[in-house]
C-alpha cells in the first residue's frame, strides 16, 4: 500500500528524529483547552499529573525523565538511548521475556525511548490492569536489571538497525547527519541513537554510570490520563515512587548553539544511488520563542503542508520530487530549522537551486494576507485532531512539563494564532528563517555523479554512507 504524500518524511525528519521536541504542541490551537487535571509534587521531587477521562476504561501513562542524551558523554553518544531500550529488557523480578509477556499478555503497551533532553516511557493499559501497570513502570525505572547479555543483544541490534536503515531509505537518517553538521560540538549535534562506532564502544559500566547519575525522583514527571481514581492513584504513586532518591548529579545545562555562517556542504556518498536526498538547515529558535504562533503559520506556508511553497515548486509545478518539507525543532535552546527533499541524481542541482530560491523569496517577499489567512485556518482546523485520546493528552502534558511551560502553552495557542499579523510574520522570517547564504547543506547521493556540481554551494566535506558515524569529522579518505 503506497500513499500520496510522503507523510513518513515529516515523521522521519521532525518526530522520529531522535531529538526532543515532538510536533504535538506545535499544532495545539484555539478551542483546545487542557482538560481539568491535578498536579502534585512529591516530597522527593516527583511531579505527578492526573488527567481523569472516563469515556473509555483505559489509562495512558507518560513518564518523562529529564536529561536524555544530554547526559551522554560527548565521545559516546547512544548510552541514553540504549539504556532506555534496556528498561523493558528485564526489571524487578521479571526477565526480558517475562516483562514483555506481562505487558502484552493483557494487551498493554509499554515503550521507552530517548530524546535529546529526556527519556520517556509511554504506554496504555486497561483500567483494570493499572496496578500491574504501576508495578511494571516502577520496576523499569527503579529496578532495571541491565543484564550484560541483554545489553549485548540490544547494542548489536541497534548497530545493525542503523545499517539496515542505510540500506533502505536515507530519509530515516539524514537529519542525524544534518544535526551533526550544524551543531558541531553542541549536544544537539550528537546522534541520540548513537552511531555504529559509538555504540560499539559502549560498555555495561557506561549504562550503569548513566543510570546512577541521571535517574532519580527529582528528574521524573509522571502523567496519567484516562479512567483513573485520582486519590487511589496518588497513594499508589507515593507507595511506588515516594522513597526514590534524587538523581546524583544536577541536570545537564544547555547553552545556545551558534548559527552557521556562510555555506557549508557535507556530501555523504552512496554509490549507485539513483536519487539525491538533501537536508538544508541552520540553528533556529527555542521552545519559548515568543512568536511561536507566527512561526508555525509561516512554516506551514513555507514547507509544512501540501500546498507549501517548497512542495509547490519541487513537486506540484516541476515534478522533480515526491515531496519537500520544512520544520523547526525547538528545545530548551534553539534546535534546527531544516528543509528535506530529494530528487533524481541528475536533477540534484536543479532541485537545490529551486529550494534556495524559494528560501530567498520568502526572506525577500514574505507572505501575503491571503496566505496568512489560509495558514491560520489550516492550523486552527487541524489542531483538535492532535488531542483526541487520553494518550494524546499524556504526551502533550509530559512535554509541557519537560519544558516548564504550563498549560497556558496549549490554552493560549488559539488566541495567539488569531492575533498573528503580517508584521509578525515578517519578524519571524527575519529572525528564525536562515538566509540562503547561511546554510549547512547535507546531501546523500552518488558522489561520483554530483561531486563537481555541488562545489558551487560551498566548501564540501565528504564521507561515505557506510562510514560508521554521522559526524563528518570522522572522515575516511575515499579512493576518489
Amino acid at each position, binding site marked *: 500500500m503506497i500513499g500520496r504524500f510522503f507523510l513518513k518524511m515529516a515523521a522521519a525528519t521532525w518526530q522520529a528524529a531522535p531529538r526532543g521536541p515532538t510536533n504535538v504542541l506545535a499544532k495545539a490551537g484555539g478551542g483546545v483547552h487542557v482538560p481539568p487535571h491535578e498536579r502534585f509534587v512529591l516530597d522527593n521531587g516527583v511531579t505527578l499529573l492526573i488527567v481523569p477521562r472516563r469515556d*473509555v476504561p483505559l489509562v495512558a501513562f507518560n513518564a518523562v525523565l529529564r536529561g536524555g542524551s544530554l547526559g551522554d558523554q560527548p565521545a559516546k553518544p547512544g548510552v541514553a538511548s540504549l539504556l532506555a531500550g534496556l528498561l523493558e529488557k528485564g526489571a524487578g523480578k521479571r526477565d526480558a521475556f517475562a516483562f*514483555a509477556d506481562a505487558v502484552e499478555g493483557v494487551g498493554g503497551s509499554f515503550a521507552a525511548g530517548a530524546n535529546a533532553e529526556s527519556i520517556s516511557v509511554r504506554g496504555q493499559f486497561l483500567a483494570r490492569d493499572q496496578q500491574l501497570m504501576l508495578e511494571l513502570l516502577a520496576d523499569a525505572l527503579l529496578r532495571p536489571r541491565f543484564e550484560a547479555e541483554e545489553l549485548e543483544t540490544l547494542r548489536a541490534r541497534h548497530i545493525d538497525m542503523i545499517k539496515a536503515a542505510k540500506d533502505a*531509505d536515507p530519509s530515516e537518517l539524514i537529519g542525524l547527519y544534518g544535526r551533526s553538521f550544524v551543531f558541531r560540538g553542541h549536544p544537539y549535534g550528537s546522534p541520540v541513537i548513537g552511531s555504529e562506532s559509538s555504540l560499539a564502544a559502549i560498555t555495561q559500566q557506561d549504562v550503569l554510570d548513566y543510570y546512577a547519575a541521571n535517574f532519580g525522583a527529582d528528574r521524573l514527571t509522571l502523567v496519567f490520563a484516562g479512567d483513573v481514581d485520582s486519590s487511589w492513584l496518588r497513594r499508589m504513586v507515593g507507595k511506588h515512587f515516594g522513597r526514590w532518591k534524587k538523581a546524583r548529579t544536577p541536570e545537564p545545562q544547555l547553552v545556545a548553539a551558534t548559527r552557521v555562517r556562510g555555506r557549508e556542504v557535507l556530501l555523504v556518498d552512496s554509490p549507485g544511488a539513483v*536519487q539525491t536526498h538533501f537536508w538544508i538547515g541552520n540553528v533556529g529558535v527555542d521552545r519559548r520563542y515568543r512568536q511561536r504562533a507566527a512561526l508555525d503559520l509561516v512554516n506551514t506556508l513555507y514547507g509544512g*503542508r501540501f500546498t507549501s511553497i517548497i512542495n509547490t515548486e519541487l513537486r506540484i509545478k516541476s515534478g522533480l*520530487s515526491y515531496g519537500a518539507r520544512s520544520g523547526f525543532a525547538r528545545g530548551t535552546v534553539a534546535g534546527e530549522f531544516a528543509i528535506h527533499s530529494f530528487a533524481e541524481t541528475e536533477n540534484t542541482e536543479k532541485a537545490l537551486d529551486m529550494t534556495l530560491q524559494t528560501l530567498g523569496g520568502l526572506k525577500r517577499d514574505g507572505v501575503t494576507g491571503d496566505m496568512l489567512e489560509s495558514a491560520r485556518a489550516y492550523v486552527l*482546523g*487541524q489542531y483538535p485532531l492532535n488531542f483526541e485520546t487520553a494518550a494524546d493528552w499524556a504526551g502533550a502534558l509530559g512535554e509541557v512539563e519537560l519544558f516548564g511551560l504550563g498549560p497556558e502553552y496549549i490554552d493560549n495557542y488559539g488566541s495567539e494564532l488569531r492575533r498573528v499579523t503580517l508584521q509578525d510574520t515578517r519578524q519571524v522570517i527575519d529572525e528564525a528563517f536562515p538566509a540562503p547564504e547561511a546554510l549547512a547543506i547535507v546531501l546523500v547521493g552518488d558522489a561520483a555523479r554530483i561531486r563537481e556540481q555541488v562545489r558551487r554551494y560551498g566548501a564540501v566535506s565528504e564521507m561515505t554512507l557506510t562510514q560508521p558515524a554521522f559526524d563528518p569529522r570522522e572522515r575516511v579518505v575515499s579512493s576518489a
Partner: protein
Amino acid sequence: MRNLFTSFFRHLASPRSSGVALESAVPGRESVRATTLGNGMRIIVWPVHDIPNVALYNWVRAGSRNEAPGITGLAHFFEHMMFNGTSRRQPGEFDRLMEAQGGANNAFTSDDVTVYQDWFPRGALEVVFDLEADRIANLAFVREVVESERGVVTSERRLRVDDNNPGFLGEQVQAAAFVAHPYRFPTIGWPSDIEAWRLSDLQNFFKTYYAPNNLTLVLAGDLVPERVFDLARKYFEPIPRQTAPQPVRAREPDQLDERVVVVHRKAQTPLLQYAYKAPAAADSRAAAVNLLLSILVDGDASRLHRSLVEDQRAAIEVSGHWQEGFDPGLLWLYLTLPEGADPTHTRALLDAELGAVARNGVTAAELSRAKNLTSAGFWKKLATIDGKAQLLGEFEIFHGDWSKLFDAPGQFEKVTREDILAVAREILDPKRRTVGVLLPELET
C-alpha cells in the same frame, strides 16, 4: 507501504503507539447510518461529537489488481491525478481550497483499492463535498500535467523501490509469487509502464472505476447524517452511473513448489522475505489468520521475535503482514538480518519455528496474548474519528457490510487453538511459499 524500521523508531515517534483491550461490546452501531444514492454510490456516516472535526474516506474499488501488462501502476497514478484539476478548477486548486478551509488530505493505493482521505473542521463539510464530487464528475486530463506527475511518481518509485532494498526485494517476490493473478503487479508500476501510459489509458480507467457505483464514501465525526445525505444527493447523485467494471476473473493456480528469488544489491544487512499463499479478506478463517500472524510476530514476546531476534540473534527485526484483499493473496514475513549473517542459517531456524507451529500449534497463553493485542489494536483505532472511518470502510468494502465491524471482537474471541493449528497447517506449507533473499553484492 510497510516500513521495516517502524519498531526501531517507534519509541521516538508518535504518541499514538499505545492501545488496549476492552470488553467486546462495541458502542455506536445504532448511531451509524448508511444509504445508497440513485446512481449506486454508498454513503456511510458515523456521528461522533468528541472533537469538532470530520474524517472522510472515499473508497474506490480499483487497485493494481485491476491493471494489465503495459498499464501497471495506473491505479496509483490516479491517486496522484485526482488532485490535478478538473474542468472547473485549475491543478492545485483542490488542495488550496481545502487547506484554506482548515482541511488536510491524503490518499493511498493498494492491490485492491484506492482511498482518498480528508480531515477537516465540521464547517468545511460542504466545500469538501463540492471538491470531492467535482473531481469524480469533471476530472481534467491535461497532457503537461500528466507528464509532470509522471516525474513525481518516478521519484516515488526511486524512493520506495529503486533505492530501497526491502522495497526492491518485495517487488521481486510478489512478481514471482503469482503467475496468473494480477496481484503480481507492483502497485507503484513497472518503470517502463510509468513511462508509457497514454491519455486514452487514463480516460478509460477513470470512466470505468471512478463511477459512483464503484465508490463508497465513509464519514466519521461531528456530523448530522441527514445533512450528509442531503449534500451527497446534491453533489454526487447527479453523476451518472456507469457499466459495472468487469470482475477480475483470474484465479491463481495452485502453487506446486517453493519458489526462491535471490537478488544481490549494495547492502550491509541481508534480507529474507517469506510470502505464503493465504486466503482472501472475506474468508471465514480471517480472524484465525490474523491471530496466527500476531502470535508469530506481534511484540517482543512473540514466537519469531523471541526466538530469532532475542535468543538466536539470527535476525534484528521480524515483522509480518497479511494482504487482506478481495482475492486470495499473500501472508508475508519480513526479516532483516545482522550484517554478515548467513541467510541459510536464519532460514533453517525460521523453518524450524514455523514447522513447529504447523505441527504442534500454539499455547493457550500465546493465543490469549494475541487476542488481547489484536483487541488492543482494534480499540486504539476506534479511539479516533480517523480510525472509525477507516474501519467502517474496511468492513464495508472487504467484508461486505460495515456493521460487521461491531462484531469483530466477538470473532476474535471465538477462535480456538484448533482453529489456529488448522490455518497454520494450511498456510505455512513450504510448497506454497515464495522466498526472497537479498544478499550484499559481491565485490568486483
